[in-house]
């Protein structure tokens, strides 16, 4: 978490290097900056530095780069504002980076900068958060909606013995991704788990206190409740905190999407058996491999292109240049200490 100072220094150095480089380039009148990039020279630009989530994806990217013998660096802004990434994109372009791997703070604001990068021969991979499709070659998505929904249903079914009443504690009532997952979970439950009955869906608005109160209300108004699914990191932590000191601890199961750091306490004290989230490390790892495949020309971002991503195996590019990471990772007592984000 204390990566601000070093990150900022790298950023400054990058700017200094760029200035020197661009001076040199303009002196000899060359505009073919793409050629100066190495074979697999990859620059990661997260939404912001000092964010444990991106620290993890960074680790994954670095690991991948080591495996395919490319060079790796991470630069980025200290805060996730829409246009804060532009200068870092420009720098990477001028340095002739082989590929930029970026989690976009804004789908449009960085579009022009990315377009310039691509004109200069730099490949662009977005991960975690996409831009409009015309600005990048591929998007590595963590959120394969079906996979996420299926995983949560699987975990709750396992926790309650595939029978009984469950409820969902979501974020805001109009949150697009949550609603999509909920719809898919409903479908999955109806089709494959006839013993489980979804009795209620409530909205905690990603606010600790509201999620707390909604959890209490769920437990009181549904005496036969066996489990709660909370597909939002704020919701699951609040529900876990409520359950951990409630008379229902151990009687009502809880699962959903959360980060290991916020859930560690509750997994260890037995409130929560298991929960899920995609692994940001794998996300970074896969993104780096996708960038490498683009640089080497193995893929162009067309639908149907396939590439190898080290230990994760083979991936196929879907429509709109989409690469899905696949099923989320399950966290439980056994593996939670291996993760820090």
């Amino acid at each position, binding site marked *: 978490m204390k990566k601000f100072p070093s990150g900022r220094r790298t950023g400054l150095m990058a700017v200094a290097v760029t200035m020197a480089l661009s001076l040199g380039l303009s002196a000899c009148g060359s505009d073919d900056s793409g050629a100066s990039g190495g074979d697999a020279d990859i620059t990661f630009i997260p939404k912001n530095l*000092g964010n444990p*989530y991106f620290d993890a994806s960074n680790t994954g990217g670095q690991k991948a780069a080591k495996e395919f013998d490319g060079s790796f660096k991470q630069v980025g802004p200290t805060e996730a504002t829409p246009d804060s990434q532009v200068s870092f994109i420009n720098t990477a372009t001028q340095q002739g980076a082989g590929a930029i791997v970026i989690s976009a703070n804004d789908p449009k604001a960085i579009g022009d900068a990315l377009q310039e990068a691509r004109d200069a021969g730099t490949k662009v991979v977005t991960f975690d958060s996409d831009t409009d499709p015309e600005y990048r070659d591929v998007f590595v998505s963590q959120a394969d909606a079906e996979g996420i929904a299926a995983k949560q249903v699987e975990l709750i079914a396992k926790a309650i013995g595939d029978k009984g009443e469950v409820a969902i504690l979501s974020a805001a009532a109009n949150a697009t991704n949550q609603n999509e997952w909920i719809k898919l979970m409903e479908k999955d439950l109806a089709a494959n788990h006839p013993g489980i009955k979804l009795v209620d869906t409530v909205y905690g608005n990603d606010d600790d206190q509201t999620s707390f109160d909604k959890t209490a209300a769920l437990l009181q108004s549904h005496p036969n409740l066996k489990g709660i699914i909370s597909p939002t990191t704020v919701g699951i*932590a609040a529900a876990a905190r409520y359950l951990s000191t409630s008379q*229902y601890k151990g009687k009502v199961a809880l699962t959903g999407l959360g980060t290991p750091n916020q859930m560690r*306490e509750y997994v260890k004290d037995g409130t929560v058996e298991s929960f899920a989230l995609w692994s940001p490390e794998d996300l970074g790892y896969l993104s780096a491999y996708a960038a490498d495949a683009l640089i080497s020309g193995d893929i162009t971002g067309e639908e149907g292109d396939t590439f190898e991503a080290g230990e994760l195996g083979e991936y196929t590019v879907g429509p709109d240049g989409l690469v899905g990471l696949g099923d989320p990772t399950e966290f439980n007592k056994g593996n939670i200490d291996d993760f820090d984000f």
Partner: protein
Amino acid sequence: MTRLASLLKQRETGILVAFLLFLAVTTAINPRFLFSSDGWRDLLLTPSILVLLAVGQAMVIITRSVDLSVGSIVALTAYLTGRLFLDTGLPIAVVVVLAVLAGMVLGLINGALVAFAKVPALVITLGTLYAYRGIMLQWAGSDRINASDIPDAWLTFGTSSLLGIPLLAVVSLLVLAGVAWFMHNARAGRELYAIGSDPDAAVLYGLKVKSRVLLAFAASGALAGLAGVLYVSRYGTISSGVGMGVELEAVGAAVIGGVAIFGGSGTVLGAAIGAYLLTTINRGLPILGIEDFWQRAVVGLLIIAAIVLDKLLADRQHRKLLAERNQ
């Protein structure tokens, strides 16, 4: 008999009756709302933090000001608490004192701006609401403090009970009792009412208006600081959104509890009961199966009703006094 009559006339009694009525109806529909160990605990525990804020807010409103920055103060002091636990090995008691002091300093800044710059508190504290939140965002960023970063003893404090009464509720009730005594009996407390009733008269009378206004804001800030520390012990997770919007709940609780928005009348006890009523309604409506939207609408109606009632009572009092004079 006159004693009973005057008790019935108190605004606090009306709010208390409304609270008990709501409690009775909800419990009749779902007995577990009150008669389960969770239900009983939540009834007392959930309003505790809002009670502190409402008490502080009442002190400020009584002086004919308002403190809109308390939500941001809660956020800053909660994050400060988390950071102190995480980065220093200070004992819990020291951390609590530091957070309360930090809240008081933020409150003093509000008070100084209001008392010396002579700009309405509404504007000043709206400004500091954003300024303090901005500092919080800059400081915390996307960082989040998790329950595992907080000492177990402090987390346990947030949920354990003494003789069936949650410790947080005990703290808030002690604070309430202290402030209620101060407002009712202490000279400085009475002067807050005098200032709110008629600021010009208070100056002419020779009251130390500035230092009293400072006192009210410092108290509100310190109570918000205390609320911030207690937030940590209750919720365990602190992100940059902590306390967003609670300032309006605090104002709402005070107004519902009979604290006149133009100052000079009302009690902190009423504000505290208002906080209980507001929180319990928020908890009870979902249990009654009422939808989210209507929950907010009901709270809004309550606030409007309280203000209209205030106005009617004030008008009646005014007419009565006029009639007495003309006799």
